[in-house]
């Protein structure tokens, strides 16, 4: 069985940077199409819209006000960074790849990315180890609640085509 597509879920949170080199290496070894899916977490936008939203900076422990515009800007910047890093990791490799930004919850957006795919798709949740043994399930069994449950383990998920 050949994995046709790898969806690397990328999120804007601080800490635990994605190991893009390992992801690219995996895609290359499987000769699979790679999709970098940056998810603008809706929860972050909800948080930023609160009247007393404050962010405690991880580096300085300073509290600073945030608003939706600042959060969107911050997420855009992070997305651009990740796109650049992914392109750099790929280099001149002819591997087919794309990078997409989607807004919503992680489970919703990954579900949408898997829907209608003809072949098996490997989902790499944020911060997951690409070399870990994947959790396997059929596309027909996939729904949002199930996907959310699988994502919590932090391990790759292999979705088999129906």
């Amino acid at each position, binding site marked *: 069985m050949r994995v046709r597509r790898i969806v690397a879920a990328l999120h804007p949170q601080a800490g635990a940077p994605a190991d893009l080199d390992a992801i690219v290496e995996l895609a290359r070894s499987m000769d699979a199409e790679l999709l970098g899916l940056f998810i603008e977490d809706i929860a*972050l936008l909800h948080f930023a819209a*609160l009247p007393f939203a404050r962010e405690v900076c991880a580096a300085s422990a300073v509290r600073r006000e945030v608003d939706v515009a600042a959060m969107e800007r911050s997420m855009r910047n992070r997305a651009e960074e990740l796109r650049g890093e992914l392109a750099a990791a790929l280099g001149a490799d002819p591997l087919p790849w794309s990078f997409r930004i989607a807004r919503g919850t992680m489970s919703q957006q990954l579900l949408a990315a898997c829907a209608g795919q003809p072949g098996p798709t490997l989902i790499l949740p944020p911060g997951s180890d690409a070399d870990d043994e994947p959790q396997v399930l059929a596309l027909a069994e996939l729904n949002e609640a199930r996907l959310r449950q699988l994502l919590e383990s932090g391990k790759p998920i292999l979705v088999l085509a129906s």
Partner: protein
Amino acid sequence: MEMSLPVPRPGAALEPAELHRRCDPGQFAFATTAELQDFDAVLGQARAESAIEFGVGMRCEGYNLFAMGPEGTGRHTIVRRHLERQASALEAACDWCYVFNFDTPHKPRALRLPAGRALAFRAAMERLVEELGAAIPAAFETDEYRNRRREIEAELGERQEQAIAGLGERAKAQGIALIRTPGGFGFGPMGKETVMSPEEFRELPPAEQKRYEELVSRFQEEMAGLLHEMPKWRREALHKLRSLNRDVTRAALNSLIEELKAEYRALPQVQEYLARVQEDMLDHAEAFRHTKDGEPPLFFGLPLPQPEPPEPPLRRYAVNVLIEHAQARGAPVIYEDNPGHDALVGRIEHVSQMGALVTDFTLIKAGALHRANGGYLVLDALKLLTQPYAWDALKRALRSREIRTESLGRSLGLISTVSLEPEPIPLEVKVVLVGERLLYYLLHAYDPEFPGLFKVAADFEEDMPRGAGNDLLYARVIATFARSEGLRPLERAAVACVIDQQSRDTGDAEKVSASMQALVDLLRESDYWARAAGAETIGAQHVRRAIEAQIGRSDRIRQRLLEDVLRGSRLIDTSGERVAQVNGLAVVQLGDFAFGTPHRITARVRLGSGRVVDIERESELGGPIHSKGVLILSGFLAGRYAANKPLSLAASLVFEQSYGGIEGDSASSAELYALLSALADAPVRQSLAVTGSVNQHGDIQAIGGANEKIEGFFDLCRSRGLTGEQGVLIPESNVKNLMLRQDVVDAVAQGRFAVYPVRTADEGIALLTGLPADAINARVERRLTDFAERARTFAAEAKKSPWRARPPHK
């Protein structure tokens, strides 16, 4: 009226044998110098040699030497020979290295090692670094190290995650969600799964909103407190990691460095240095691990703090061998030909990095003092004194007995680039300065430190006595030079000719020159002419040819002056007689060539106040010694002829057609004869020339350059034709100096020229005028008495009717 004067008594002239003391080739038993053995000792410098031996042997402070004497007397050779002999009996000097100072990097440390061990030590340190370059990375590649490192990283990660998760749980219990943002952490009221949407929040009652806001604020504070703690946890983990790294490095390092320490067990200074190296390597193991440029090692995703030395990481363990004596036999003897400041005390070089000049301990270079440390240093005094700040630097080093290498620009405050202050190196050296006597006396007089630092003076002679024994030794010296210079052997006649010339150079028939430079030059040039003639050996004719060629290359001015006289531009008579006119003789020194030339000296006398006017002095063309000679004439005249009456004489003396300066008193006798001739109205023979100074008693005293003066007049007379009446009057005390040219001696032998030794002015004036001295003296006395009486008459008349008191004509 001119009248013919009788020729001076032939018996008064010198015999040809007295004019030139020839070295007799017959005294030599050898045919050529090839048969003679080398002469290794030094001829005629016993005093200087004894002083050098004493100075070299004295190991006390301040007993440095000053070898003084004229150029070419073999000062350098003799000094070097003595020093090398003494040095060979001493132990080889220590090696010196500069190494990194781990406490104060800008003050490199000096390490002393036994002779010949510095290079081995440098190689051992290079090998240590090379071996550690393999051993340390290998130690860090082991599974054990990786596991222990991962443990530390995991421990820190878990500690942080658990703390954050714990806070998240407590918040969740209060209905507050913890959310990770791109920049950190945030808290908000919890909705169904995660943070409540703004719409849901707005629908809450105001009191509920207020409660959430307060709770969020509290958890934010707690999170801030937690984040403040995290650097401390990270430091603790780093400390553990560093400790781990040191343990791993120590395991790799200890066996290697302990081996090295054992090798240098006997050298505490090296032991101490190696201990510091060991400690420093434990802290700088990263330098051996070959990380990629610009990629510092990471710890938990964060760059590890590293002590970043300004120099390339492993360069600090290099050893700069400043001076080593691996091949040395005995103590060093160093001659520094260019004794500038840096050449003496060493220099600190810089390299350009990104447009800035930087340096480190490996760029310290040794100076002559370093090389000579433990031995001897020979310097040319004049070169040393003409190099800026070199003399001060040498004195400072000798006084403080240490070598402090310091950039001159920095010590003068001219350059403010990064520089070093290397640890001074203890100095134990004996310095020998070689220079002219004048320099020694000037330094002694004007530099208060000099007498204390250079207590031994070795005074070299310019000449040495001649004699049968010395002639043979001199012949061996000639043979030694001929061999060492690769020249043809000299025939014994050539040797005699060389000795004659060396004697002539001293201006003394009883001496021979100690100038080895002039001797070697003459030998080389004689060899050239022998080669040109295709001869196997150097003959007397080749030596004579060399001397003639030397003169021929230098005598353009002499020829021009002679030509001026022969063409009548300069008026010099060599025949006839004339009152108050005498041929004086002067020596002109141009470079290393001296020659004599005649000058017409004239005198005028009249009634006056007893003053002899030196026109040369009045026109500022005469020097003080010349003036002194003229003033002595007044004393002579007054003392001899006017002891009981006023000297009512006004006289003037002049060197005719002299447009340059005149110095010296060797013409004072000629000037006296001109005066006496003028006073006595007695004509002077122009076929004679005169040299010699005179004192107040009328004694004729020795002068210099007698040979050149006689030959100068002889050349003029010969050009006009020798008549047999021509000759020169010289002081009798100069007879011993005569080493005249062969052609002059030959002319005297044939009765065509004469040299008259004169002891007193009376003898001289008798020869010049052909009249007995008593007759001349009587005439002079009469003339002066006449002047005195006339002066008294004038004075009496002036008293009766002083012209100043006369009323003006109306």
